[in-house]
Each structure stands twice: as structure tokens, then as C-alpha cells.
């Protein structure tokens, strides 16, 4: 794939990451912010909502930017390995941000005719920890990639820039 192709690939993946790390969570939390079930309002507190959206946006932007550099870099290059590792570390922080922003234990207040009559709380901390485990394995894989790309740099470059009999010099 040529340079332009790599850049287009980078832009496409950046779009994918913007959608999955920012747009979908933003729409989800905005949708659940104020639900009404059988005439009873179920409301996510304003402070929780702002905190969650702030951290999702902050890490979502960083992940999307590194996704561009990762996917626009040549295959098996040190640059790709480095950005892939940075991206996965940012992914870990992104997942972790769900915990410290309060998104893993969301509390909705139940409001009936102005009065607060109770709450619904959903705790997904165990699930986030399991995803962190998966990301840890991915970090090992990306670290291994980077190590491999550095160690085998010569053979990777020879393969990438191999001469073709009868080809033209550029």
C-alpha cells in the first residue's frame, strides 16, 4: 500500500475509533441521562454525567489521534509498533477512566412528581477489570511486536524494499 493509501487507512481507522470511543459512549450516556419508565423519571446526576463525558472525550481524542499514526504507518515498521503500544496503553487508561469517572457504578435517581423516591445503581466494575485483563494481554502482544520489529528490522526492510527483476528505479 502506498503513502496515500496508508494515510487513507489511517483516517478510516481514526474515524472508527472516534465512533467507538467517543460518539457511541456519548450518545449512550446522553440517552440514559434522563429516562422515563411508566411515568417515573430515572435521572443520571449532572455531576456524574459531566465527569464521565469529560474523561471519555479526553481519552477518546488521544486514542483516535494515535490510531491515525498507528494505522497510517508502514506495516511492521518501528513507528507502527511504537504507536500501537502507545494506543493500547491509552486504551487501558480509557477503560480505567470509566472506573475513576464513576461510569462503572452509575447511579440513577428515581424521581416521581418532583420528589426523589429512590435510586437504581448499576455496577460494572468486574466487567471493566476483565477488559483490563484482555488489554494487559494485548500490551504484551504489542510489546512483543515492537521488540520483533526492532530485532528483525533488516529482514523486514529487505522484504519491503526488495528489488524486482526488470523493475524501474524510482
Amino acid at each position, binding site marked *: 500500500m502506498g503513502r496515500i493509501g496508508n494515510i487513507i487507512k489511517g483516517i478510516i481507522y481514526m474515524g472508527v475509533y472516534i465512533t467507538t470511543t467517543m460518539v457511541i459512549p456519548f450518545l449512550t450516556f446522553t440517552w440514559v441521562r434522563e429516562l422515563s419508565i411508566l411515568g417515573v423519571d430515572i435521572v443520571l446526576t449532572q455531576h456524574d454525567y459531566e465527569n464521565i463525558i469529560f474523561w471519555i472525550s479526553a481519552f477518546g481524542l488521544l486514542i483516535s489521534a494515535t490510531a491515525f499514526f498507528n494505522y497510517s504507518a508502514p506495516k511492521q515498521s518501528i513507528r507502527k509498533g511504537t504507536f500501537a503500544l502507545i494506543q493500547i496503553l491509552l486504551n487501558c487508561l480509557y477503560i480505567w477512566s470509566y472506573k475513576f469517572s464513576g461510569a462503572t457504578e452509575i447511579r440513577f435517581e428515581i424521581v416521581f412528581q418532583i420528589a426523589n*423516591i429512590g*435510586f*437504581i445503581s448499576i455496577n460494572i466494575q468486574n466487567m471493566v477489570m476483565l477488559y483490563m485483563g*484482555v488489554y494487559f*494481554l494485548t500490551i504484551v*502482544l504489542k510489546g512483543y511486536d515492537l521488540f520483533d520489529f526492532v530485532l*528483525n528490522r533488516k*529482514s523486514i526492510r529487505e522484504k519491503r524494499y526488495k528489488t524486482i527483476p526488470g523493475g524501474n528505479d524510482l
Partner: protein
Amino acid sequence: MRPSRAFRWIVRAFLLVFTLSLSTVSILGGWSAVTILNPGSNDINIPDGDYVVNLDIGNSSIEMIVPFNISNGGVYDLSDIFLSLQIDMTFGNTSTLNNDTTTVQIFDISHSYGDIAPEETLIANYTGSGSLPLSEVDRFRTPHALEFYASLTFRASYSLNLYTFTVGIIDFSIGNYSWPP
């Protein structure tokens, strides 16, 4: 293909299967949890019918029986089911200078009900008793000498314990009592 790349592909395939399985469990579990919690589904009925409050003023005691049923309409076990009920009594306190309105907790009992397998229903009675501190009650308080408020907490885990949800209803009035003139 270099052996190092082959090894990488094996680890990557394992990670892909692991991530896809986890995502499937998350989505299925999340959807099932929403289905169970949806009031329209009638999967959680607390109380299921009339609840019984036996107020024994003579013996200063209260007994409560709340029938309930919980159906697991999802795909995983509904586990660690926990139900807790507190009852507060509000009265005019004769031990204070102006018979100040005072609230005391007269009932605080929690029960665990284990797990419910998919497509099964737990039908049970929540029972408990408490005592009434009637010695300091202003019997002539208006409109009622005694007012009773309940708080209910229901908690359960779902999707291999990956989700835990809690529903709390706070201070809803369950009745009052006045001594005959």
C-alpha cells in the same frame, strides 16, 4: 512466514476469541439485565400482592410479611439476590420539651435468597419482626400518633457476576396509627 510472526498470529487469534466472547457475554447480559429490570416485563414483583403488617400495640411489636416473586427471563443465572427492608417510625417524643417529632428505626432485616437459574422463578415471603418504643410516644399527636415509612433495597448480580444492580426505594409511607380517643 517467520516463526515469530506465526506465534504472534496464534496469540492474536486467542485474544480475538477472548475479546469476542467477553463482548458477547457483555451484550447478552446487559440486554437480559435490562429486560429483567423493565417494569413492563413483571419479572420482579415486590410485593407480589398484599403485604401484611401486624402491628401489636399491646406487646409493642411489629411483624411484617411481604410476598414477592422474581423471575429470571435472561440467559444467565441471577445470583446473590439480596433483599433488605427498613421501617422507620415517626412520632411525637414525650421525653423532649416540646414533644419533638422523632424518627427511629424499628425494623432492619436483610435476607439473601441465593441464585435463580434462567427461566426459573423464585416465589418467597420476606418476613421479619421488630419492636416499637412506645413508652415515649405522644398519643395525642395529630394527625396520627405513629407514622410508618419503609425503605427497600433489592440487589442482584448478573452475567457471571459481571453486572451488579441495586434498586432502592426510600421512605415510602406504609401507614399510620392513632389511638382511639
